[in-house]
């Protein structure tokens, strides 16, 4: 099963290598990993999507806990949370096709951020399913390039404390 782990770490050089290395050498399957600073500059948050049964997830969390620079880990999977990805899609678009594409963009509440003679760049955020659906909807027009971020997530309502 897919799990979303929200991991608070000390914002120091080498922490990402430590976390990523751990997944590799213990044979855990990391699907996506996003890192960014939090409201406190000395602390970063990693959102890690990992696939595995409960035993694997338990080991992942315990092994992560052993890293000195890891402060707190939350498995969001069972909780109410908002998760988002950001995607930039460069799609082939002749002048005749533009209207149709713009309709799709509207439906997905995406935005067109650049137009050139033969293509458009579309920006969208959303949960991974919506993003994938958008990609499929645009595929018939000819996708030239896709840049997609890892997923980030935040718990609804009460905030996760840093300490």
């Amino acid at each position, binding site marked *: 099963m897919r799990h979303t782990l929200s991991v608070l770490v000390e914002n120091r050089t080498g922490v990402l*290598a430590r976390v990523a290395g751990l997944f590799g050498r213990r044979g855990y399957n990391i699907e996506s990993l996003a890192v960014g600073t939090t409201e406190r500059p000395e602390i970063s948050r990693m959102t890690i999507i990992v696939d595995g049964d409960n*035993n694997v997830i*338990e*080991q992942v969390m*315990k092994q992560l806990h*052993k890293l*000195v620079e890891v*402060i707190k880990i939350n498995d969001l999977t069972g909780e109410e949370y908002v998760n988002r990805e950001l995607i930039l899609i460069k799609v082939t678009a002749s002048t005749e096709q533009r209207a149709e594409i713009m309709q799709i963009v509207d439906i997905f509440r995406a935005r067109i951020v650049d137009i050139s003679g033969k293509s458009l760049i579309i920006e969208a955020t959303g949960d991974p399913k919506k993003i994938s659906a958008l990609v499929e909807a645009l595929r018939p027009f000819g996708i030239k390039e896709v840049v997609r971020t890892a997923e980030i997530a935040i718990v609804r309502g009460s905030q996760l404390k840093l300490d």
Partner: protein
Amino acid sequence: MTITGAEALVKALEMQGVKVVFGYPGGAILPVYRALKDSSIEHILPRSEQAAAHAASGYARTNHTVGVCMATSGPGATNLVTGIATAYMDSIPMVAITGQVSTAMVGTDAFQEVDTKGITLPITKHNYLITNTDDIPRIVKEAFHIAKTGRPGPVVIDIPKNIAEAPCKAKLDPPLDLPGYKPTYKGHPSQIKNAVNLIEQAKRPVLYIGGGIINAQAEPLLVQFAEKQQIPVVSTLMGIGVMDANHPLYLGMLGLHGWPAANMAVNNCDLLLCMGARFDDRATGSVPGFAPNATVVHIDIDPAEIGKNAPSQVPIVGDIHMILTELLHKMEACDRSGWLKELEPYRAMRDKVYPQDEDPNKLTARAVMQAISRITEGKAIMTTDVGQHQMTAAQFYEIQKPGRFISSGGLGTMGYGLSAAVGAQMAAPNDLVICITGDGSFQMNMAELATAKEQRLPIKVILFNNNCLALVRQLQDTYCDAEYYGVFMPGNPDFIQLAKAYDMATYRLTENKNMEETLREALSNDKLTLVECVISEEDMIFPYIRNGESINQMVMAEEEMKNRAKRKK
């Protein structure tokens, strides 16, 4: 007056109580050596960095302190790696300090540059590359704290040359601030209650103990607990020495070369109390076949060990010293004579493990180990290398004092024994230190004889020589249809001549006659001593468990002979 980073580093080491550093100098660590010269710390120069790390490990294990080793950048650091990995696998507290090229050169493939932090990432509890001189006092303090608390382990500090040379303005004793590092010491009360209930109800409980007991210095409590509850004890290689080998409740080492009583007790138990052990594959054999009818209580300070290799019904994370104290306090004495009697026949099986019909004058490693047990009364500090001799020592050395069996368990590092003996003898100058080794292992770090000579360490090296890597030969016998390959060492030197070159006292044993007298003389010698015991390459370690089988499926000498006869037909 401002001091340099190197001086701050050395002062910080002094403040941590460091008395001895095992190190090998070089260009990048030059400033640290300059500062070390003016300090109260004694520097020991082994003949390779790997030996420095093993010596620090032997020192740490003998003195229950943090061992410190040091090396320069590049090859110095990579030579340390095997020693660091050895310490990591056996949870030995160690701080390894490595020089690094100057920060401006880092990443340029400079002379003797290697990414020490990257290389040691998976084999350390934590590691640092210092990028700011003012961080030095904090990092040293953190490193020692991390190395010795919780589940102990090695910590690497990589210090670039220019960082060591720059002035350090930071306070030498900064407060500890490690928000992500909080080991659990107190066991969860409801889980302890569950364990108490299970122990009270158990008819056939077994204590399965490991090196965690020694790290927590909880040996007397464990013995008290076993005695009060009348629970038989089996030990991993790392747990050897927790129990007096002759204690009536002690069944010996379990596992792939474990005694029948230990393996069968685990096989037949209804409650397995695992304390400070980690269900290592050499102890468990097939995991589903390990204690198949037992409820498992797993007590360890490292939460990640629980459920890693084997499932447990009652996990308790915490300091075994505190948990045993609580268990002792909460539990009434108990009689389990029925269960103990049930195990007696398995104890008697011990006599059938090895061949019975050998020439009485044939020298065997086990006879030598038994003689050493008698002569030393089990009170010597024993270091071992890795191979058949290690298993013989684990099986036959009747240790009577805790924490005195120093062997590479998890990583199985050949070359550990003599280097660790140097560290052990430095830590305990007045104790008898014996290094049990084989011709294969001995030659891996043989140069340490020079370190021992230099420091006037009266280490007793017992060298079992069969001109063969006999444990590998045994594996080829079992798994490769006796197609021996790459295991014979006809080029071995005359070890007696070699030892004489180091001014050692030398003895050579080839038969059982006069063996004990010779050993007695050798062990009472106050010189660095070599006893070469010439044994047969065909001797095997019994019992053994075939790959994938359970630990109750032990192959002993008699069965082995039958198998061989069949094979010949």
